[in-house]
C-alpha cells in the first residue's frame, strides 16, 4: 500500500546518511570522549566537530552549545537552570499559553517552587505581539520564554522583535526561545534576536530521537538539572550520547545545505495541499495564520472527530495527527486551540498535517484525495438527520 507520512512535526525518519554516520560511531569510533587514550581522543574530535556544526547552524560559538537528551531536557535545563540560578534576583517569569508541554509544565513546576509566572494570551491565529510580551516584563522578571514556531498550528512568533523589546525594558531579563519546530526550516539566529537561551532537537530534522541541544550565551550560568562528571562543562554531565550527537550533526549538515530549497518546497506543498483541499472540502477551516511555518497545517473538519478520521486514514496509509486526543472518559483538548479561542467542538474536529522535504506534490494530491474520500464517507455517519 502506498504510504504518505504527514506527521513530521511529531517525528521524522532518520536519513540513510545520518544512520550511516551513527553506525560508524556505534561500532567503530565507539570511544568515550573522556578517555585519555587514542580512542577517547577520536571520539572527542567527533564530538567537537558535531558541536561546531550545530553552533554554525545557529550562528553562535562552539562553547555555547550544550548537547542534551532532546528538546524536553533542553527546555527544562534552560528554564529551571536560569530561574533557580537567579532566584535571589527576582521571582517573576513570563511565557505564553501555547508553548510545548515541556515548557508549560516546567513553568508550572517552578510555580510550585515559589516563582510567579505570567502566561500570555495569544490571538485567534496563535500569535503574541512583542509589545504584549514587553509590557509584561517587570523589574523582577528573570526570564521570558517564547517558542519560535508553534508545533500544533505553525504560527511564527515575532522572536526577533521580542528579544530587543524585552531587553530594552529590563536588560537583566533573560530570553529563551524554543526553536524545536523551526530549526532547520527557518533561520534561527539567537544573537540577532538577543536570545540568551535557545532549544533545538535532532529528530524533527531527520536526525535520531534522544538528542537535542541548548544554546546558552557565553558567560551565562545555569543551575544544572543533573550532577555528575564534567561533560558539557558540567552543565549536562553524563557520558555523551555519541551516536545521537554525531547523527544530529549529520542531519543538521544535510538540512542546512538545502534549507532554502526545502523551504520553497515545503511552502509549495502547503499551498498545493490547501488549494486541493479547498476544492474538495470547502467547509474545512484552517487554524493558525495563513503565513505560518511552511511545514504545518492545522484544520478543523466540521462534524468529524479528528481521531476517527486519523484512524480511517491510517487504514489508507495516510499518517497525520489530531489536535486533541479523543476519549470518552478524559477530555484534554488542545491547549493551543483553546487559547486561540476555538470551541471544544471545533477542537475535537481538528487535525494536524506536517510535511517534510521527503514529501512530493504527487503525495500531497494523493493524500488530499484520500482525506476527502474519508471525510465524505464518515460524514454519512455523522451528519445523519436526527
Amino acid at each position, binding site marked *: 500500500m502506498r504510504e504518505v507520512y504527514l506527521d513530521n512535526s511529531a517525528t521524522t525518519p532518520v536519513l540513510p546518511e545520518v544512520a550511516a554516520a551513527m553506525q560508524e560511531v556505534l561500532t567503530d569510533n565507539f570511544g568515550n570522549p573522556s578517555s585519555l587514550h587514542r580512542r577517547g581522543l577520536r571520539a572527542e574530535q567527533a564530538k567537537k566537530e558535531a558541536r561546531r556544526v550545530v553552533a554554525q547552524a545557529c550562528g553562535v560559538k562552539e562553547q555555547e552549545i550544550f548537547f542534551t537528551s532532546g528538546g524536553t531536557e533542553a527546555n527544562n535545563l534552560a528554564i529551571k537552570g536560569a530561574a533557580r540560578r537567579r532566584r535571589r534576583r527576582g521571582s517573576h517569569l513570563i511565557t505564553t499559553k501555547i508553548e510545548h508541554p515541556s515548557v508549560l509544565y516546567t513553568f508550572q513546576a517552578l510555580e510550585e517552587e515559589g516563582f510567579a509566572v505570567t502566561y500570555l494570551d495569544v490571538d485567534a491565529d496563535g500569535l503574541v505581539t512583542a509589545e504584549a510580551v514587553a509590557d509584561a516584563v517587570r523589574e523582577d522578571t528573570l526570564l521570558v520564554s517564547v517558542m519560535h514556531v508553534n508545533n500544533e498550528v505553525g504560527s511564527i512568533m515575532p522572536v526577533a522583535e521580542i528579544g530587543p523589546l524585552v531587553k530594552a525594558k529590563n536588560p537583566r531579563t533573560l530570553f529563551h526561545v524554543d526553536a524545536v519546530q523551526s530549526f532547520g526550516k527557518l533561520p534561527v539566529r539567537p544573537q540577532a534576536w538577543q536570545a540568551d537561551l535557545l532549544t533545538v532537537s535532532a529528530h524533527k530534522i531527520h536526525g535520531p530521537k534522544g538528542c537535542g541541544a541548548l544554546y546558552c550565551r557565553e558567560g551565562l550560568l545555569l543551575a544544572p538539572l543533573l550532577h555528575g562528571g564534567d561533560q558539557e562543562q558540567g552543565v549536562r554531565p553524563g557520558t555523551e550520547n555519541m551516536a545521537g550527537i554525531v547523527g544530529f550533526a549529520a542531519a543538521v549538515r544535510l538540512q542546512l545545505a538545502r534549507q532554502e530549497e526545502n523551504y520553497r518546497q515545503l511552502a509549495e506543498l502547503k499551498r498545493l495541499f490547501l488549494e486541493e483541499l479547498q476544492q474538495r472540502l470547502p467547509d474545512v477551516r484552517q487554524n493558525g495564520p495563513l503565513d505560518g511555518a511552511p511545514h504545518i497545517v492545522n484544520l478543523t473538519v466540521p462534524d468529524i472527530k479528528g*481521531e476517527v478520521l486519523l484512524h480511517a486514514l491510517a487504514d489508507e496509509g495516510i499518517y497525520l495527527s489530531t489536535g486533541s486526543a*479523543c*476519549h470518552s472518559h478524559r477530555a484534554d483538548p488542545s491547549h493551543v486551540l483553546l487559547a486561540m479561542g476555538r470551541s471544544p467542538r471545533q477542537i475535537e474536529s481538528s487535525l494536524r498535517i506536517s510535511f517534510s522535504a521527503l514529501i512530493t506534490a504527487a503525495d500531497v494530491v494523493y493524500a488530499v484525495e484520500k482525506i476527502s474520500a474519508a471525510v465524505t464517507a464518515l460524514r454519512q455517519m455523522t451528519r445523519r438527520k436526527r
Partner: protein
Amino acid sequence: MKALYLIRYGEIGLKGKNRRFFENTLTANIRRALRDVAECRVLQQHSRHFVEVLSGDAAAVAARLQEVFGIVSLSPVITAALSMAEIKAAAEREFSKVAKPGLRFKVNTRRANKKFPLLSQQVSAEVGAHLLRTFPGLQVDVHEPEAVLDVEIREEEAYIYTERLPGPGGLPVGVAGKGLLLLSGGIDSPVAGWMTLKRGVKLEAVHFHSYPYTSERSKEKVIDLCRELARYGGKIRLHVAHFTEIQEELRLKTPERLLVTLMRRMMFRLAERLAQQQGALALITGESLGQVASQTMESLNVIERVTQIPVLRPLIGLDKQEIMDLSVKIGTYPISIRPYEDCCTIFLPQFPATRPRLKDVEAAEAALDLEGLIAESLAKTETLEIGL
C-alpha cells in the same frame, strides 16, 4: 533446604464423586501457574496438595500460589525426621519466627502415620513443653491461641508449620465448563471475568472492534487485559469481532435513541454464535443494575431476548466503587483506565432510551439484514490466543 508448601482447598472436598477430577485440575493449574516461576514438584495427598520448590524463588512461588483459584490457604512447611528429638528441634526453629514473651499458643498434631509410637496428644504435649522451656514467657491457650504450631506425622517424615497465607478461594479453573466473556476494555468486564474464573469457569473473550471508530490501541488494551486475566485462568482465547459495518448500519437505518439497545442486541447475537462455535455454555458480561442506560431492567430484558444461551452477570449487585476496588486488587485497573476508550461516542445518542420497548426495537431491526450483518462480522472476526 528445599522449600515446601502445604496447600489447602475448601469446596473441592465437598464435591463427592467429582473430587478426583477437581483435585487433578487443581494440580494441573498449579503446575501451569508455576511453570515460569520456579522448578517445582506438585504432590497430591490426603485432601491437600504439596508444592516442593526444587530450585528458584520460594517467595515468588508463594505469591503465585495465592492467585490460583481453588486454594483456600497455604503454609510454608519445614520437615523433620520421625523422631521426637528431630521434631522438637524443627518445632523450635519454626516457632522462633513468631515467639515473643506473653504469646498465647498451642500445638496441634495430626498423626496420619499410625505407626508412630506417640499419640497426637502426647506429641503436642511434649513439643509444647519443649517450646515453653525454650522461649521464656509463652503461655499455653488451647481455646484462643494467638499462634498455632502444627505438627503432621507422615509416613516418612514430619511436617511442621505456623504460618497460613490466604489463597483466593473459589474452584480450580476448568472444573465448571467454559464461558464467553464480553470484554470491552472498561473497568467492569475484566472484573466480571475474574469472578467467573473464580467459580472454576474456563474463559474465552470477545471484543467488539469498530475501527476506525475505535483505535488500534483499544485492541492492544483488551489484549493486555486478557494477559492479566490469564494469570488467574491460564491461556485465554480472544475473539476480536468486527463491528464497524454493524455500527454504521445501525447509525444509518435505526432511530438514534435505540442505538445502544440495538448495539447490545447485536453484540449478544454475535457472542451467542461464537459461544456455540467454541463450546461455551454461557455469556458473561460486566453489567451491573442501573449503571447506564443499557443496564436498566427494561434494557436488560429487551437485550437478553435475542439469545437462548444463559447470560451471567457476576457484578449485578455490586456498586461502582466495589467493582473498582476489585479491579485494583486483581490488577486490571491500571489497564482499564488507559485513555483510548473508544470513539464510539460519535455514535452515542444524547438521550438514549432507558426504557426501550421490545416492539419498537423489533420494528427498528426490521430495517436491517441481521443475518447478513452477523455473517459478515463473523467472517471478519480475528481470534488470538493470549497467554501470560
